[in-house]
């Protein structure tokens, strides 16, 4: 968008100019609308007065009057003075011929009554249908009625020899010539009449009409089939009433109320109409559903009337009907002239107004710099805008009043002026007043919508939003407080609170809703249901709690068994149990980590020991090998051989030490594998002693084994136990006094098997027992013999590893080692 356009868009003057022009064109548009209204009004009823509501209401007034008269007159015994007066007024009007309104009154006998203005009475009407009721001013002489078209005709002999159609309802009033013709039945006859009324037949003179039979015999057995027409022979034959009348059903049947009340009513099965027969048979009247007949039936007097009313559209009398009709006609003619100008005006105004409106809309909200900003009036809130509009509407009403005053008052344009002026004035003033307000409202609205500030500017909406936010904020705070209050309490408090709340609810339940049902219901199922219903949630809750608790117990059992990997699903547990479950999961995670650490460290230790031992043993091997080679070498020098001897001894010692050290460290670090199985202790001791047989003989020691009464089985690792005995026996061979006995006692003490080995020490044991067990401590403090000092320590560790106990007792020269091991369980 170019800068020029931007500036233009934001230009105030442009908008002001557009505003003014829009105002003017708006006014003209309104006037055009007014004109359109006028046209619409004028042409609404095709311009016919007889279609207009005015006519209907006027007619209805007259009809009601007559009806009332009929009623009154048939109840003349009950005529009050007021009633009489009204009747008088009514008759005056008719007498004075102040109306174009015509009517006929028929009594039950089919006699027509016309009002005798002179005698002020009703007289029996036309006889023979042809005579003029001379005493009346009514130009009615004879009449006929077309059944199909519901048109009544009367023959106006006083004026011309023609039939004049008159209508009992609201059709057109037309005068036409009656033509001659013939017909075969009443229906045709009627048609002919009608056509004559419409000018399609040639004239039918009086005589012919007079010669026409009133009814036709349509039954097969009738003596004559009458032909209505110029063949006067058959026509002139008198038709017996009784012979030629066709009645639906039996004569005098009471199936039809009309027949009982009107003996002269006849039915023509061809036209399917009821006819009221004149005694002279010269005229007939069709009775149908759709003619306006006011029928009054008075059971007391057995008199009923039919009222036919119509309007003389010639308007011989200058009455309201005539003036109205004239007015309508004039208006229509007027309106027709105005159609074109109005349409042109309206369309052209529209053509001008719409673009201006578009321009205003386009420019709304923009300023010169091309930004959307709300200035001045545009910042009005929605409410203010509505207020402004209300002012506009109020001014509009004022304007209408003004227009009204103008029209009727000082600038009286009079009723002679074309009606359109009124409309134009009203709408014009309305537009003048209303349009600017609407335009302003429109621009403000569009500006606000463009800047999306519509809702913000509206005071009410902002208030509502603020209130809403306030409420929701308050609610959420309340909720948070409640939550804290409830959640962080210890379990028993929570349970108490909930129970209290639930009990209150139950109270409401039992004293309120359920009470009526329980007391009043006869169905025991329903009663028990209402009573038990509050218990259901409690039961469900308990079940859920029990299930969760069970799951946690199982999880704990899994932990005991060592399965640290399966986690507990805590998502769907109750709150307190859930935190417990999560703690359990954390615990199991921690345990599994600890186990892993332990395993790693064990592995590390084992590897360490293995590597160290390998690193120690490799050079040691070489030393021993080469020393051996040296020994084999041919060396004469004795001192050198002595040195080699020393090397040999020491390297052997080093070897022993290394092996013992390795074992001791393994035993101490707990990296030995222990495989417990049920062993016979006695057997093992014997095997061990057997192994040491030679050495014991060499050391001049004899072993005495004291066996238990029954063979004892211990849970031990065979290799380790052998090693223990190996150490002990080795100690015996090294330190026991030659020639003495070694006692090995095997016995049972409670759940343990006890092995005691006793011997006499060769040298004095000047080291206390517990010291002896320490590593590298030897009984011979001079350290002159072979032992490494680790033997007992190893023995103790091995015993402990097998879940046994190792003890030493030193008593003078007596050295006693006590080993206890758990018994293997008896299995039958």
């Amino acid at each position, binding site marked *: 968008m170019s800068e020029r356009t931007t500036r233009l868009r934001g230009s105030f003057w442009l908008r002001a100019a557009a505003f003014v022009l829009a105002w003017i064109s708006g006014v003209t548009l309104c006037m055009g609308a007014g004109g359109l209204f006028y046209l619409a009004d004028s042409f609404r009823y095709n311009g016919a007065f007889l279609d207009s509501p005015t006519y209907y209401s006027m007619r209805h007034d007259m009809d009601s009057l007559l009806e009332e008269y009929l009623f009154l007159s048939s109840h003349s015994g009950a005529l009050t003075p007021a009633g009489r007066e009204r009747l008088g007024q009514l008759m005056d009007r008719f007498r004075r011929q102040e109306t174009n309104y015509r009517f006929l009154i028929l009594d039950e006998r089919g006699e027509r009554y016309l009002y005798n203005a002179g005698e002020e009475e009703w007289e029996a009407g036309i006889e023979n249908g042809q005579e003029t009721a001379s005493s009346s001013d009514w130009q009615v002489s004879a009449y006929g009625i077309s059944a199909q078209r519901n048109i009544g005709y009367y023959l106006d002999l006083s004026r011309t020899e023609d039939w004049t159609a008159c209508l009992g309802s609201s059709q057109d009033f037309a005068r036409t010539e009656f033509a001659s013709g013939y017909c075969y039945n009443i229906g045709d006859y009627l048609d002919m009449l009608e056509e004559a009324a419409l000018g399609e037949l040639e004239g039918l003179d009086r005589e012919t009409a007079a010669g026409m039979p009133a009814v036709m015999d349509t039954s097969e057995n009738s003596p004559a089939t009458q032909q209505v027409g110029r063949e006067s022979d058959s026509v002139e034959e008198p038709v017996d009433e009784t012979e030629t009348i066709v009645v639906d059903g039996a004569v005098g049947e009471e199936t039809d109320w009309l027949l009982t009340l009107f003996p002269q009513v006849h039915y023509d099965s061809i036209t399917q109409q009821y006819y009221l027969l004149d005694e002279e048979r010269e005229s007939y009247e069709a009775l149908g559903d759709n003619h306006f007949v006011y029928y009054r039936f008075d059971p007391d007097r057995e008199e009923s009337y039919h009222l036919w009313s119509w309007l003389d559209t010639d308007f011989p009398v200058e009455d309201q009907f005539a003036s109205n009709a004239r007015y309508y006609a004039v208006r229509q003619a007027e309106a027709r002239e105005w159609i074109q100008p109005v349409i042109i005006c309206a369309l052209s105004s529209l053509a001008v107004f719409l673009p201006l409106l578009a321009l205003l809309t386009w420019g709304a909200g923009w300023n010169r710099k091309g930004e959307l900003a709300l200035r001045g009036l545009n910042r009005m809130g929605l409410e203010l805008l509505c207020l402004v509009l209300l002012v506009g509407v109020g001014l509009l009403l004022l304007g209408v009043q003004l227009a009204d005053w103008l029209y009727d008052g000082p600038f009286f344009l009079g009723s002679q002026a074309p009606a359109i002026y009124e409309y134009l004035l009203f709408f014009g003033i309305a537009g003048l007043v209303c349009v600017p307000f609407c335009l302003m409202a429109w621009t403000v609205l569009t500006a606000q919508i463009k800047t999306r500030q519509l809702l913000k500017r509206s005071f009410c909406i902002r208030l509502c939003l603020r209130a809403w936010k306030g409420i929701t904020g308050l609610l959420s705070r309340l909720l948070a407080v409640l939550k804290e209050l409830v959640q962080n309490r210890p379990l028993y408090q929570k349970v108490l609170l909930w129970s209290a709340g639930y009990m209150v609810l139950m109270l409401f339940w039992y004293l309120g809703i359920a009470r009526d049902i329980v007391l009043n219901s006869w169905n025991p199922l329903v009663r028990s249901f209402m009573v038990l219903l509050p218990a259901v949630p409690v039961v469900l809750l308990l079940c859920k709690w029990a299930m969760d608790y069970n799951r946690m117990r199982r999880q704990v059992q899994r932990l005991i068994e060592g399965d640290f990997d399966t986690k507990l699903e805590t998502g769907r547990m109750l709150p307190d149990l859930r935190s417990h479950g999560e703690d359990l999961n954390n615990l199991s995670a921690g345990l599994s980590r600890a186990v892993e650490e332990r395993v790693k460290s064990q592995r590390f230790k084992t590897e360490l020991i*293995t590597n160290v*031992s*390998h690193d120690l*043993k*490799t*050079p*040691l*091997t*070489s*030393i*021993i*090998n*080469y020393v*051996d*080679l040296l020994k084999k070498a041919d060396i004469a020098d004795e001192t050198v051989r002595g040195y080699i001897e020393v090397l040999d001894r020491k390297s052997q010692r080093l*070897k022993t030490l290394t092996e013992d050290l390795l074992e001791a460290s393994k035993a101490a670090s707990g990296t030995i*594998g222990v495989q417990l*199985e049920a*062993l*016979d*202790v*006695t*057997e*093992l001791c*014997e*095997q*061990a*002693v*057997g*192994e040491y*047989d*030679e050495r014991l003989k060499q050391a001049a020691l004899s072993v005495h*084994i004291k*066996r238990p009464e029954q*063979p004892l089985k*211990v849970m*031990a690792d*065979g*290799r380790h*136990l*052998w090693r223990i005995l190996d150490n002990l026996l080795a100690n015996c061979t090294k330190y026991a006094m030659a020639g003495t006995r070694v006692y090995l006692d095997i016995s049972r003490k409670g759940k343990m098997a006890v092995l005691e080995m006793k011997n006499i020490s060769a040298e004095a044991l000047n080291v206390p027992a517990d010291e002896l067990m320490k590593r590298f401590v030897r009984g011979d403090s001079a350290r002159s013999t072979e032992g490494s000092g680790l033997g007992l320590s190893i023995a103790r560790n091995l015993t402990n590893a097998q879940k046994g106990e190792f003890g030493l007792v030193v008593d003078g020269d007596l050295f006693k080692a006590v080993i206890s091991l758990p018994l293997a369980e008896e299995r039958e």
Partner: protein
Amino acid sequence: MNRIMIVDDDRDILAALEIYLTTSGYQVIRAENGREAVRRMEEEPADLILMDVMMPQMDGIAATRIIREKSNVPILFLTAKSEDVDLIHGLNVGADDYITKPFKPMEVLARIRSHLRRFTQLGGQPRRDNVLTVGPVQLEDESKRVTVDGEPVNLTPLEYNILRLLMSRPGQVYSSAQIYEQVWNDPFLGSENTVAVHIRHLREKIEIDPAHPRYLKVVWGLGYKMEQ
């Protein structure tokens, strides 16, 4: 002349072993790691291998596995590892024997001799019934003759019977009571360790290293068995 390959990453050990072996009359091939051992075996196969276990690049066990795919020569592990697990693993892989470090050279030579004898002689002997064979020990029940690596051994009748009992089902553990009753035909009173003593004597006669028997083993607390 038998060819023996010695595999060890420690050169001093290799040197010492070479001296021992050459003085005993064997031809020696040296290798310093498993890969080299495999390669040398393919070039010029030896009659026996002394294999160290812990070596760089390829350890003894892997080398044994590869060599075993193609050759059946006796393999003896020289190992500082003396854990039972390691021993079983080594024997499962295909070694015939193991020697722990530090070793006695005499023992090494004795074992070599034994394995060589078995290896060379085994193929030629026809299979006969009533001959129980476990490892180097062969017992002919008809002639009541026992040989270890072909060398006859003198056993007392009791020793013989014990050995026969144990060799009749190699791997089966016999308690002292069972051995006593079977051999002495007397109920075992449990007051003597005769059986243990006899076992010991037996072991000294048929085992290279009686202190660490390979075949006549003690199952502590349960009895004795002949290892397969």
